[in-house]
């Protein structure tokens, strides 16, 4: 459906007035910005301590832009007004901070430094490439992301169970969702630091009863990484499960019935009908879960601080330490920006690969 194109008769004078309003707003914004830059760099004495004046100029420019649109384009301008606030808000709250973040990433900015922030080009990037902690954290992320496949299998199994005609189905649906409702910080303390505590934790006691003499869940690299994966999986499997369950319930019943009539076994029906039909939902669930997984930090920070020896460190928990404990804002921002780009590239490639794969399957 296309919108009806309205063509107003707009006089040249009105158009010029619109242009004038926008030009005045733009001039104000540029002037405010230039004044602050000159003031902050010490070139002039005219300016304000904070950058708030630029924000006010931006708001004024936004209003001028809106008025200008209406004056210049009439009905089409009024339509633009519906989208303009959202666009300006996004520019102010997302695009500008991201661009500013790239600038910060190219500075040597240690909060304790007496000389303040200094532009240092790509030095932070070269430092990052040689940083064994960052590489180690990236490698750990590969393991963490691979664990999503196991989580997916478990989630699919649970979704199939909850989709079946079992007793107290609604009760179980709510119960299985509970871990997702808990904050990962609470999970860290309740499970990581209490249930799995070496001396008194019930999980440790159970492990001892099962024959493991020293049930230290976070003392060796492999077991610690596995324990973190389990904690995280416990929290987020319900998220995948609920998406898959919704998908299962939306499957057309006639196809399933046809398979049944044709004499397919449950196994055949699953692989031949359910699984392929569930692929789009599955892919959405897995990709969203991977995005969540790439942000894993809170459980790691609380339970192991990235140890032992960096075995459980994630990129986010490393950035957290670099930024928070070492006040190394420039380098920490560079790490975060590179990670953002890596995530965007990875997810884009993954989506491309998946869409090609599903096309082939179908």
């Amino acid at each position, binding site marked *: 459906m296309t919108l009806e194109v309205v063509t107003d008769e707009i006089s040249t004078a009105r158009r010029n007035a619109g242009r004038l309003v926008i030009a005045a707003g733009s001039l104000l914004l540029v002037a405010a910005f230039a004044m602050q830059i000159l003031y902050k760099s010490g070139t002039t004495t005219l300016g304000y301590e904070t950058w708030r004046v630029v924000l006010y100029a931006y708001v004024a420019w936004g209003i001028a832009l809106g008025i200008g649109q209406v004056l210049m384009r009439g009905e089409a301008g009024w339509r633009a007004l519906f989208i303009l606030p959202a666009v300006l808000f996004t520019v102010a709250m997302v695009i500008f901070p991201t661009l500013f973040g790239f600038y910060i990433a190219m500075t040597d900015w*240690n*909060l*304790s*430094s007496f000389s303040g922030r200094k532009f240092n080009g790509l030095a932070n990037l070269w430092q990052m490439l040689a940083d064994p902690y960052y590489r180690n954290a990236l490698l750990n992320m590969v393991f963490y992301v691979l664990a999503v496949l196991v989580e997916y299998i478990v989630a699919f199994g649970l979704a199939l169970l909850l989709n079946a005609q079992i007793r107290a189905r609604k009760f179980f649906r709510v119960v299985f969702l509970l871990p997702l409702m808990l904050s990962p910080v609470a999970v860290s303390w309740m499970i990581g630091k209490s249930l799995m505590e070496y*001396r008194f934790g019930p999980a440790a006691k159970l492990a001892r009863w099962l024959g493991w003499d020293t049930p230290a869940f*976070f003392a060796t690299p492999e077991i610690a990484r596995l324990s973190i994966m389990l904690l995280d999986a416990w929290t987020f499997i319900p998220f995948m499960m609920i998406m898959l369950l919704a998908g299962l319930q939306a499957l057309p019943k006639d196809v399933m019935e046809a398979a049944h009539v044709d004499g397919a076994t449950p196994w055949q029906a699953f692989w031949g009908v359910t699984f392929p039909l569930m692929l789009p939902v599955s892919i959405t669930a897995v990709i969203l879960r991977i995005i969540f997984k790439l942000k894993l930090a809170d459980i790691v920070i609380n339970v192991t601080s990235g*140890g032992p020896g960096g075995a459980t460190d994630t990129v986010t928990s490393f950035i957290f*330490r670099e930024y928070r404990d070492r*006040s190394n*804002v420039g380098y920490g921002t560079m790490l975060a920006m590179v990670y953002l780009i890596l995530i965007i590239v990875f997810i884009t490639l993954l989506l491309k690969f998946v869409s090609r794969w599903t096309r082939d399957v179908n």
Partner: protein
Amino acid sequence: MRKEVYDRLMMMQSSRRNVLKGAAAVGALAVGSSGIVGALTRPASAQDNLRAQILQIPGIGKGQPTDADFQKVGELCLAATKANVTEGEFAGVELTFMGLNNQNLHNVLFRGFLKPWEAYTGAKINWIDLAQADYNARLQQSIATGTVDFDILQMGAPFEGDVCGKGLTSEMPDWVKTQIDMQDVVSYLQPPVGTWDGKQYRITVDGDAHNFNYRTDVFSDAALAEAWKADAGDKAGLAEWGVPKTWQQVQATTKFLKGKQVGGQDVYGYLDAPKAWGGFGFYFLGSRASAYAKHPDDKAWLFDSDTMKPRINNPAWVRAIQDVIDALPSEPPDQINADPNQTAFQQFLAGTGSMVVWWGDVGSNVKTNDSSVVGDVTGFSILPGSDDVYNSKTSQWDKLPSGPNYAPNCAYIGWGIYVMARVDSDEKKKKAAWSAAAHLGGKDLSLWCAAYPSGFQPYRNSHFDIPEWVAAGYDEAFISSYLKSEADSYNHPNAAIEPRIPGIFQYYSVAEDELAKTFAGQGTAQEGADRIASAWEKITDQIGRENQIKLYKASLGM
């Protein structure tokens, strides 16, 4: 005779008796002590009564104090405020206080203490509570972004370079110095601590030094003594089973205790804290290293004072790192994931491990914390020494003619209360802020903080009056041991003092990361130490080497 007059007289007699009773113990202690646990015998007075009265709130062994107790103590200690401030003088003033809420202490107590102050003065206080690990980041961000949004700040001396050095704090008025009786503060916390460019900024509310906490039952156990005698392993000079006096003996006893039991329970030796703790965990390696690295002829021990070249990879520090690596297999199986909070509060107080190094909190919690099971079996001393000490100037290990080298680690130099310069433009607000801070740093209130779980240790000469503690309900032998360990640490001639240089926690934090790798078996102690040294050089260059050298020297009194 009126009953209240009679009661008062009885109470005064009681105080005298306590003073006299304690004098013998104090005298005995003074023989072995270097100083301030001295005979403080003086006539009982109304002040004594007040101190005795607040120490009974709620009473030792009667559970942890509550907010009602904090308020009661705050109310009773208001006299000093009333002498300088009229009732309602600060009506309409609003102040913001930023501090910690660790273990439900610090700010949680301050709130209670300041409630009666607020009621009397008319001022209102808003609170910013921070977890220990968040403290550094919050403070640094406020400074760097020019968004200091608090008027009163709880801060440790290591941050003075970052805060006072940038002109963000208000200079202490003279009336405050008189109100808090600054002369009473122990000598190692006197200026230059708390000052910057000769100006006084800090009201000290805490004295910090790591002391050595050990289990008296373990080190007096007859069966262990027999086994020790029969043991063919290295005893590091500890001929008879007893409390280790050197780190070499700590290592030997820790290895010996692996697999041993006392009272049917597994007993472990020393408890290391290898897990990162926002930079604060580095202090615990520092305590293991100070006896090796702090030479009596050299004030510096972390960096070369002329160049800021790190000493972390010299043989002394490497030996300390190696000690941790060697001891970990004899410690509880999950020790590698233990941070200092765990070693003190979840392990030692709960009965796991027989030796731990910590700030004085272990001593103040061991009898008063509800979760402690070792109240009657804990002893204290200054940090263990070392048979030899590394001399950075000659690159040799020296054996001192006086015997083992001791070097108590005065880690963090204690918390203080600082008033921010942003109140200076408003005289009423400035006076209010300083009055609130002075109330928290008051002489009597501080005694209560030292005696109960508060997050603060003794820091005044008047805190070492043992009869006061005994009258409060402390066991005399226990409290004598505890206070002696604190006093001897503060007054030790070879104490290892922390440098008050900007960004000190960056150095510690990056070291924690490298140490975690080393303790997990990734490379040797020397390799790990070299990596720390390299990272420290980068931080020094980033912050500014010349400035750091200047401040490091100043902080060491050089």
